């Protein structure tokens, strides 16, 4: 099946705002899926609530659009009830790390054979732009009108510390790399976590001096630092600017996993 066939073409165009990065991440996820030669009958998409979580509604497989924050909890149930299914979770930063934070770390600990793609727009997009646990310091949102003063979560560090088998981070600019990362995640037994930083022009960009959609994508490009470069700088004891984030494959290991296909 080509990746266009994984889309429910009759449901497109989707409801996302013009320039919303979520559409790009669905493209990359399905392009990776295309290479797995999985049947759509054996694949399940699970999501919670949020703009990002509407993605499974545009995909031909069976899917669960669950309650806010519970995507991983439902996915755990699906996977343990029938380990022969391939279960992919699509979630947002609020869905995964705020209300669903505990499900996230415990799924990493249990190392359940899921692939979780988090569309991190650093904001609650759907409800109009409240700050989320990943809103960067100083950024404006409706709940942080003077700039965010809370230190954000690093979702990848969280997943690594909690025990996920595969962790990587890319952005909506790095489409080819993201496709490869999702593919690696789908192939890895155990919990795979792929964080994709995305632009949200409506709820985030508009309030944070990104006048055009492309401005925020350019910010994501210019503020991402490859893991290899970060490691080299650390080794040389050089300073890494605080507004840079690391992209690349951050973890790949083989801890005992749960729910792997028999």
């Amino acid at each position, binding site marked *: 099946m080509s990746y*266009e066939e994984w889309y429910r073409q009759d449901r497109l*165009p989707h409801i996302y705002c013009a*320039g919303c990065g979520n*559409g790009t991440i669905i493209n990359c996820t399905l392009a990776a899926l295309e290479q797995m030669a999985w049947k759509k009958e054996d694949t399940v998409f699970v999501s919670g609530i949020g703009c990002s979580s509407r993605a499974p509604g545009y995909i031909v497989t069976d899917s669960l659009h669950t309650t806010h924050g519970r995507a991983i909890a439902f996915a755990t149930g699906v996977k343990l009830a029938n380990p022969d299914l391939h279960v992919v979770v699509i979630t947002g930063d609020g869905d995964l790390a705020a209300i669903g934070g505990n499900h996230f770390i415990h799924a990493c600990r249990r190392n359940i054979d899921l692939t979780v793609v988090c569309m991190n727009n650093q904001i609650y997009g759907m409800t109009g732009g409240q700050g989320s646990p990943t809103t960067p310091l100083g950024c404006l949102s409706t709940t942080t009108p003077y700039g965010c003063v809370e230190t954000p979560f690093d979702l990848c560090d969280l997943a690594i510390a909690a025990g996920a088998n595969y962790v990587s981070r890319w952005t909506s600019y790095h489409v080819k790399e993201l496709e490869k990362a999702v593919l690696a995640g789908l192939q890895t037994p155990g919990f795979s976590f792929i964080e994709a930083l995305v632009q949200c*022009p409506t709820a985030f960009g508009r309030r944070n001096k990104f006048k055009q959609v*492309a401005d925020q994508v350019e910010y994501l490009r210019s503020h991402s630092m490859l893991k290899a470069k970060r490691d080299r700088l650390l080794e040389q004891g050089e300073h890494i600017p605080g507004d840079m984030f690391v992209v690349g494959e951050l973890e790949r290991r083989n801890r005992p996993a749960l729910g792997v296909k028999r």
Partner: protein
Amino acid sequence: MKLAIDETRCKGCNLCTKVCPYKIFKEGKKANRKGIIIPELDRPERCTNCRLMHLYGRTLCGVCQLTCPDQAIHWVEELPYEPKKVAIEY
């Protein structure tokens, strides 16, 4: 094959104008019936896929298609004997 933007899907975000190595997508000027300004294609026959997609049996490059958040970029079959311009890049 022919590179095309699906007008029923494009929302005019102009991200495609930033990613193509040949700069085939240019910001459009006129709004369409829905009020969306769709990018214009500058000599789209230069896209590698127009010539090589069938030969290789897969999509080459394809960065614009992966990037387009609205699944609006695709390649369509040409009609038999459809007149076309040939652009050669040095």
